[in-house]
């Protein structure tokens, strides 16, 4: 098969000044704006009711005893365990000990849960609105022509994405339109934000999405019966087989300082 000659297009160099640079600048500025918006919008955690805090802390206490039991001596561990299990099972730490068996309230009606959801909504909004705006801006002004060529070959399937609105059947899929430059900017501008804003910025959407995926569920997931959680925690504590890191410390120490 004969080698196809490389397609060349003669493009106006003005394309760079009037398309690439505006899009890039807008993307960078949006990232910076998003960073500062998220700094401004972080709400200080609301003061919670003392009973609610006690409920959460008691559960966290149980969990930390469960994960750190190995630094306690056997006696200390057993004392703490018995105390916590008794408190958990009798419901001494509950926010409202009277409604022990009742089903949990609807999270929608609980103002505290609403607060958390609003925070998440705000984050999502801060991500969605600029994206939609910029994309429609690019589609309105800069669609319908190819501006640059990717330096690596890709399959024909990408043609519809990269050359949206170009409508030339035989053109090499490596040519891309302004909307694909926008996508490249979304993924690749991380280094600019690192350079401009320091390392732990909130500008990059990719990083934010990753963060949201790994966000641990808080100790008090809404909509769960706290009494049941206490029961489960007590059970977890009861089954721990205790050992201490200090078991056999003499041998290990001698091993380490042996000449």
């Amino acid at each position: 098969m004969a080698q196809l000659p490389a397609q060349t297009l003669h493009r106006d160099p003005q394309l760079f000044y009037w398309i690439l640079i505006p899009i890039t600048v807008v993307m960078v500025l949006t990232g910076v704006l998003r960073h500062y918006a998220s700094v401004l919008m972080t709400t200080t955690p609301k003061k919670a009711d003392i009973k609610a805090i006690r409920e959460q802390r008691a559960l966290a206490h149980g969990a930390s005893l469960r994960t750190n039991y190995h630094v306690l001596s056997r006696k200390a561990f057993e004392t703490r365990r018995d105390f916590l299990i008794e408190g958990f099972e009798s419901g001494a730490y509950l926010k409202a000990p009277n409604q022990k068996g009742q089903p949990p309230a609807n999270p929608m009606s609980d103002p505290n849960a609403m607060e958390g959801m609003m925070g998440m909504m705000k984050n999502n909004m801060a991500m969605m609105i600029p994206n939609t705006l910029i994309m429609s801006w690019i589609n309105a002004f800069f669609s319908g022509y190819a501006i640059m060529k990717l330096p690596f070959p890709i399959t024909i399937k990408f043609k519809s994405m990269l050359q949206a609105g170009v409508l030339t059947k035989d053109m090499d899929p490596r040519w891309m339109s302004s909307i694909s430059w926008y996508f490249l900017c979304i993924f690749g501008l991380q280094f600019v934000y690192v350079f401009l804003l320091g390392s732990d910025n909130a500008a990059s959407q990719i990083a934010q999405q990753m963060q949201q995926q790994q966000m641990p569920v808080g100790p008090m997931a809404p909509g769960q019966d706290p009494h049941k959680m206490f029961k489960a925690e007590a059970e977890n504590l009861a089954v721990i087989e205790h050992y201490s890191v200090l078991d056999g410390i003499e041998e290990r120490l001698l091993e380490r300082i042996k000449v």
Partner: protein
Amino acid sequence: MSEQELQINPIVQDSVAHNTKTLTNLHSLTASLFGVGAGILGLESYYGFLFYIAFSITTSLLFYILQIAPSSLGEGRTVLDSGRYYRGALELWTSGIFNGLPGFILTWTLFYGLVRA
């Protein structure tokens, strides 16, 4: 029993996060510069990616020589052992390649387009 080992020799989570962040920032900055280089040279397809991989391994090597080796060798570790600062050897040598790839492609495309206009 590895869990017990971990409890006997605990790991400082803050340090792990700090080290990972240092390395990620370094790689995302350098990767964009490699993109500039590849774009100027007009590399295409495989050569561009090979250029990127070679240079980012070089970066890791430089990072090892300049920042890790002095204290790590002083501790009596073997050459190219990054156990003092990173949990797995892979974390130091390859994680940067994937972190920097989007930035690399961005600047590569940009400079390829600029130079070959």
